[in-house]
């Protein structure tokens, strides 16, 4: 690293400590400056990237259509705000169209086929295969929302089906929550220490040989 990069690095550390200071000493000018620089820098960087993209992509005449649709989103600030419904409708429609087919194929049909194949082959072991089948079937039953058809599996003699489905469902949620907590919550401290302390120490070690 050059001396200038070392100075920049310490500037970064100063600003990073400023943002983290909010948790300990509340809103100060140090925090406000750090936050503003981060947001302003991010917006400026995104702005340049978008201008670059527009420059390279607008050479295609067909791009005028999405450009017009995008511009319509800003009519919300005018008296013609009803025009802003069109970009929302187009986005929702395209989003659904692009997503639904692959989702049904990938998440529902392929998953069911896989479970059936696993049960046939008893893969990876008989207990796991049967547990997967039990989980898929009971969770599907749990998600029957019709009063007429769902009551038999939610209440009475067969109410146990929905209860088992709920156990599988909440086991999944528990795993997701735990993973998210570990990844985001516990890592927040380690990331802070790595970025602010460890990388600085290592960079200085490299600088001074």
């Amino acid at each position, binding site marked *: 690293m050059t001396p200038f990069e070392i100075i920049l690095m310490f500037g970064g550390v100063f600003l990073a400590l400023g943002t983290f200071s909010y948790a300990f000493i509340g809103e100060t000018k140090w925090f406000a400056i750090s936050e503003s620089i981060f947001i302003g820098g991010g917006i400026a*960087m995104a702005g340049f990237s978008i201008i670059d993209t527009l420059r390279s992509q607008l050479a295609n005449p067909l791009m005028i259509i999405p450009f017009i649709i995008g511009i319509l989103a800003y009519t919300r600030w005018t008296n013609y705000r009803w025009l802003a419904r069109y970009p929302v409708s187009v986005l929702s429609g395209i*989003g659904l169209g692009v997503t639904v087919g*692959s989702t049904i194929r990938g998440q529902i049909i392929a998953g069911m086929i896989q479970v059936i194949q696993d049960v046939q082959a008893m893969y990876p072991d008989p207990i796991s295969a049967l547990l997967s089948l039990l989980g898929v079937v009971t969770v599907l039953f749990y998600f029957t929302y019709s009063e007429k058809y769902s009551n038999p599996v939610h209440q009475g003699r067969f109410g146990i089906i929905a209860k088992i489905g709920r156990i599988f469902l909440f086991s999944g949620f528990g795993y997701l929550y735990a993973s998210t907590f570990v990844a985001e919550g516990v890592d927040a401290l380690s990331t802070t220490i790595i970025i602010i302390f460890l990388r600085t120490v290592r960079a200085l070690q490299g600088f001074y040989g």
Partner: protein
Amino acid sequence: MTAVENFVTTWLTPKKMAVFFTILTILYMLFPVMLPMKVSSWTTDYIAEIDRLEPGDVVVWGHNWGDLIPARSGLTFNTAVMQYLMSKQLKIIFVCFSPATPSNMYTFMHDYAKSEDYGYVYGVDWVVTPFISGEESGIAAVGDDMWYPKVDMFGTPLSEIPIYQDIHVISDAQLTMCDGGGFSWQPMYVRQWAIRHKMRMVNNYGFQVIAIYYGIYVQGCLDRTRGQAEFEYATDFQGEEVLRFQFRNIGASLVFLSVALGNIALYSKKKEERDTVGVVA
């Protein structure tokens, strides 16, 4: 009241515990005790999937690194993956779905992955697309037509970029790789590349794709909770993720320790209340 109860209830406050834990973790970061690790099958699958490729094969790496991500986490892990790909002489196309991604990827390749050290030449061995908007519709468009962006991140037409000459649809590449950036991004890559085009795919980030797609559409996965550290460990890369993983174990141990101390405090408080009630009676 025993000495332990006395210590927990009178001396040990939450603030003192926080300071103690912070000092402990900083000390561990600076002077780590590297414990042996077990490498899971998801990680070995991931490595095997890369090892399966021949030199010169093309990997399409979908990225949506935002402004902060490269500086925050996964920097050394991504360097480890990139250097592993380069050691296998694979060609890489970075497809960028966030405005800041193209410049991030270029900086990453030069400053961290050290592509020049591996003899990698931009345009011949690796290339970065410009920002492609539209999230999932953008991913779908690139899957159908790899020349959809028309130019690379510098505005050079794709017809002048050697790596692109044999790549027209995504199935012309040999492997796709998807990164994280949130809960929704990874299933998007799986839906639009792996499912629609029957592409082999490995995932660099997370558990979101494991339960639904693993084994069917995703052939290797580095779960962020431990997979990224396992990759560094398995490929003998001296990165930060192994350190972070061990740090996480310490964090989890401290959580258990706190629970135990809390239980002792609760027990002694209840005992004290019971004794007081007895005296009054």
